[in-house]
């Protein structure tokens, strides 16, 4: 997803007059963020539940705004709008996928919240006892989170370096490290409530900036959306194919089935990412979680509409060739639009670019912090806190250490693979979520025969297939956008392993369950009652591993 901006040469998209305000905004942003971190650090929080899920006290409206904020990621804001600006219809369909993702969460959110669990480990242990499911869940969480962190940190470094006017290798790595350190501080200190505040604050700011840019672009085209669209088509790189399927070069050449698989796997995978599950767990009740998702859907609809308009406006105002010169993937389209929509030298132009830069900084910080925090909670709660009896203080300390370690590992990897294409990481992370988490949730909530063996076969089988198929896919070798373009071991013909691994994980879950002698029927009744009502149906057999099972009040 993140294309290599360096490949296109030295660039100065915002001009020297806006540079100083943008750098000042960046420094102020870092200063205010650190100040806030220090303020939060003084509040010595020792209750793990308060840190992990804000004591399950977030109101539907607040959590809905925060959930909408989760949808505004670096990928959606920069890559999708850039994809629309450069590749028209193909980018537009990916913007819609982001919205449909919320539909999956709308259907599963209430059940996830009612289950009482907020990590993959907890959800996996709904139908299977012992440490096996929790270890599998932690493995999956790391397999999803570390690639996502590497990608987002790298994108953050590239975007920030570009905004401050120094898009060279060294500056990009320094910016990546700076943002990574800031993220580590936030993830270790803020907790879910602080994170939610940032996400919720990001939504109105982002929507307002996109709305202003859209209105300014419309004013250039006589306030007529039809004229704007015509200009976008005319100024695009391929006017005849711009509003037709098949222009996105990475995906279109791999065939129709590849595009189909990309869409489906993207929707299923992004819906069940660990940060989403953690956020659902912070709702007061299952009903509140569902209401949050409804609110997030409305806000997500507004965001997608503005994102699509911004993408087309960028093509109309800047032109496809101009955007492609700066970045082959169009990631800088929103920045270029902010730069070109007002005349050079005006104060309003500088203010708009500075605001856009702030939105990008905030987006990077919130997105990466969210992923880091969710992974750290999973490690602290499902693995470190289960190695024996630990006090709350020790568990909170384990969370902080886990957050810092996650960031350190991801930063090292992001710096190490800085020069290489990393599309394979996106495909891998999303496919793992779609293959290992989605089938498990569906079976856990809806199928009475699902049991421990089915779960382990499904999760490990899905994970193994994702790893194998990614290695042998055209995003690792055999194509010009692959990790090793000169090598050729790409016998798997699709970009996303999910096209095979998702059905295979479902099949393995079914096969494992039916071949096991374990009778999961009675257990299913308890689970079904719980996910429908949020309450426990009588007593269940004791399982010492299920430490986070809520106790009767």
């Amino acid at each position, binding site marked *: 997803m993140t294309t290599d901006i360096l490949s296109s040469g030295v660039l100065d998209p915002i001009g020297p007059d806006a540079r100083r305000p943008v750098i000042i905004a960046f420094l102020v942003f870092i200063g205010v963020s650190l100040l806030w971190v220090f303020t939060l650090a003084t509040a010595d929080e020792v209750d793990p539940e308060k840190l992990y899920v804000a004591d399950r006290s977030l109101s539907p409206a607040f959590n809905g705004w925060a959930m909408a904020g989760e949808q505004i990621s670096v990928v959606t804001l920069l890559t999708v709008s850039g994809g629309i600006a450069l590749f028209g*219809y193909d980018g537009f369909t990916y913007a819609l996928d982001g919205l449909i993702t919320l539909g999956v969460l709308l259907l599963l959110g209430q059940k996830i919240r009612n289950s009482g669990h907020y990590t993959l480990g907890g959800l996996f242990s709904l139908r299977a006892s012992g440490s096996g499911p929790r270890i599998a869940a932690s493995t999956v969480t790391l397999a999803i989170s570390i690639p996502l962190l590497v990608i987002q940190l790298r994108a953050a470094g590239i975007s920030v370096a570009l905004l401050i006017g120094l898009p060279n290798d060294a500056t990009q790595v320094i910016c990546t490290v700076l943002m990574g350190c800031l993220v580590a501080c936030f993830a270790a200190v803020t907790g879910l409530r602080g994170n939610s505040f940032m996400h919720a604050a990001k939504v109105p700011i982002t929507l307002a900036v996109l709305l202003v840019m859209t209105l300014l672009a419309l004013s250039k085209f006589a306030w007529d959306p039809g004229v704007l669209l015509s200009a976008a088509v005319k100024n695009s790189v391929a006017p005849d194919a711009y509003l*037709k399927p098949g222009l996105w070069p990475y995906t279109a050449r791999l065939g129709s089935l590849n595009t189909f698989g990309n869409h489906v796997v993207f929707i299923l995978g992004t819906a069940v990412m660990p940060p989403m599950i953690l956020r659902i767990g912070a709702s007061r*009740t299952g009903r509140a979680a569902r209401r949050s998702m409804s609110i997030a859907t409305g806000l997500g609809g507004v965001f997608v509409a503005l994102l699509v308009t911004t993408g087309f406006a960028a093509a109309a105002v800047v032109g496809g060739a101009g955007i492609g010169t700066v970045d082959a993937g169009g990631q800088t389209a929103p920045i270029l639009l902010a730069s070109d929509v007002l005349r050079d030298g005006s104060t309003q132009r500088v203010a708009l670019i500075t605001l856009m830069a702030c939105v990008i900084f905030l987006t990077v910080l919130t997105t990466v912090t969210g992923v880091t925090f969710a992974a750290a909670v999973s490690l602290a709660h499902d693995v470190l806190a289960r190695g024996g009896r630990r006090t709350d203080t020790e568990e909170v300390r384990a969370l902080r250490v886990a957050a810092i370690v996650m960031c350190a590992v991801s930063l090292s990897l992001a710096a190490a693979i800085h020069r290489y294409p990393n599309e394979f990481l996106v495909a891998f992370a999303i496919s793992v979520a779609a293959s290992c988490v989605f089938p498990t949730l569906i079976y856990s909530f809806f199928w009475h025969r699902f049991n421990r063996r089915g779960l382990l076969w499904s999760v490990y089988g899905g994970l193994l297939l994702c790893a194998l198929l990614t290695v042998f896919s055209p995003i690792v070798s055999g194509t010009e956008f692959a990790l090793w373009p000169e090598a050729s071991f790409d016998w798997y013909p699709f970009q996303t392993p999910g096209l095979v691994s998702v059905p295979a994980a479902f099949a393995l879950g079914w096969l494992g369950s039916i071949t096991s002698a374990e009778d999961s029927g009675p257990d299913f009744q308890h689970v079904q009652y719980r996910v429908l009502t949020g309450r426990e149906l009588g007593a269940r057999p004791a399982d010492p591993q299920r430490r986070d099972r809520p106790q009767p009040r």
Partner: protein
Amino acid sequence: MDRLRETAHSAQRTFLVVNAVPFSVGIALSCFTDVPAATVSGNLTLGMVWGILQCALFVASAWLYEMRSTRSSDPVELSLESDAPHTDASGAAAAHRTRW
């Protein structure tokens, strides 16, 4: 319990069908045929119009799903809560709720 399951699943099924059918048709047409490239008006193609309508349908159906669940499922769930002396399993009702 059965009534709750029935009402909840009925609302979910409706939401799923209303959105999954146009989405699947749209994505299949867009991936396997040239139909979305057909011009509707000016530069606007059928694929674009389909996508915009799908987006609007999705937001509207999510709102209707919420309304329907609030009206039909939530009262059943609440009555179940008040009738049965079961234990709260979801970790709900945090003792010190904030206004957020």
